[in-house]
């Protein structure tokens, strides 16, 4: 099955439940056979985004369609497209910068928990960026949002992950940070950066 692994990964990180992810994957491939989706694939081929991106876009769409149906209101998707999505990319330095050269593998568990705590829209961006290695443009195409939103969302996702790591005792211990000392937490330890 073409790109099943990538589609399942996205479905899993959107739903966070294996059985829901399986349903979503099935829905994705069924939708992919529908004429409107096929027509869109023809368009996507024009800009070389390919079958994987096409399937992932369908998966993402199907997930939010399902959320809308479940909510019977637009609360969830309104949250998804809230005003913060359109604000300029934050200019502050990232907490990550203080962690250069550290052994990230030591904090895999903490990092996974931090990512799991994120909203699905942040997880989706992180996945497409971190795992699939996509460019901002490709992510924007898949998630059907402006590229500025992708950049903003990616920055926020990274910042939230770093803040969560800073508050996680396991990560503090692994990174040699003193618990409860905010000045030494990854979230605040980064040097101010001239804008």
């Amino acid at each position, binding site marked *: *099955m073409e790109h099943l692994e990538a589609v399942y990964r996205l479905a899993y990180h959107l739903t966070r439940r294996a059985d829901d992810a399986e349903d979503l994957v099935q829905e994705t491939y069924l939708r992919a056979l529908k004429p409107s989706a096929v027509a869109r694939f023809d368009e996507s081929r024009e*800009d070389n985004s390919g079958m994987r991106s096409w399937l992932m876009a369908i998966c993402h769409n199907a997930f939010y369609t399902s959320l809308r149906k479940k909510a019977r209101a637009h609360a969830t998707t309104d949250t998804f497209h809230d005003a913060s999505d359109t604000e300029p990319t934050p200019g502050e330095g990232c907490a990550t910068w203080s962690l*250069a050269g550290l052994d990230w593998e030591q904090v895999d568990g903490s990092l996974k928990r931090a990512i799991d705590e994120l909203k699905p829209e942040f997880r989706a961006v992180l996945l497409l960026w971190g795992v699939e290695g996509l460019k901002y443009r490709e992510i924007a195409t898949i998630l059907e949002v402006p590229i500025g939103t992708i*950049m903003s969302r*990616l920055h926020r996702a990274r910042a939230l992950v770093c803040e969560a790591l800073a508050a996680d005792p396991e990560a503090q211990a692994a990174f040699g940070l003193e618990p409860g000392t905010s000045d030494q937490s990854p979230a605040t330890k980064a040097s101010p950066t001239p804008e």
Partner: protein
Amino acid sequence: MTTPRDQSDQANQPLPAPQSEAERVRRAADGELDTAHGLEGDPRVAAERELRSAVGRVMSDVAVPAGLGERVAAAIDRETLAAQPAPNVSDPTVIVRSNRSFWTTPKVAGLVALAAAVVLSLSAVVLLQRDSTAGMPAAAVRFASREHDRCSNNPAYSDRKFMVEAVGEVPELFAGLAGRPVGIADLASASASGLMFVAAGPCAVPAPGRPASIHVRFALDEDPAAQISLFAVETEAWPVVTGAATYRISRDARDAAEVTYVWRSSGVVYFLVADDAEAAETAREALSTPGDAPETIQL
């Protein structure tokens, strides 16, 4: 929400210049800067890349469940079947969806056929390769087990799948899928021998040539909560499954209590799945499967 056309337009435009040093660092790390002058070897860029790598490692640790590909292929088969006319079924609504005309317009049908061919051919190759090595319908057994579980645990899915609610209509359903009458087991008699017919519907048991197959659900007269599945596949494949015996499949199953029987009769291979041995035995006897005692086969 932007449209595909918006996205296409957007894709042709250059990224705006970074609005801050922080953004410049992030974009340099992500390879999204035309020139990263002055940032070569910058520890901030290195840190961003380390984070990206760590996120990638953690988030990629997700394994595709075994059989998901087969399940999706089966769903596509069902959808394809539902979009086809069924000349031999007396009630066309049994397997023909209301949007059939939309799917069968020449242009759409061509596009759908193209996409379906890509997906189905890939999955079929995988399934057939697996079966050819085992000599037994291993993929079909796995599929039957998972489909049984899915229908047991997902009422909404079952509702969509099982369209036939009268045991007398099952032969018509099977014949409609095969395109000719098929000698299916006497389910009406079985229903009078301790089995309680629940519903039936088209299925897509993985088999060479993608033959007609159906899924029939039963309960027990004495235990209406019992979940029993019978999959019937019209095929000459799997000659190891002879018409002289019933095979009890033993496998390293996730559910040790689940029992699967396989047998062949009149050109149809059957897979019987039940949640426990007693229910399986009751169903096997009611269906008069061949042979005196089941032969156990390890898959």
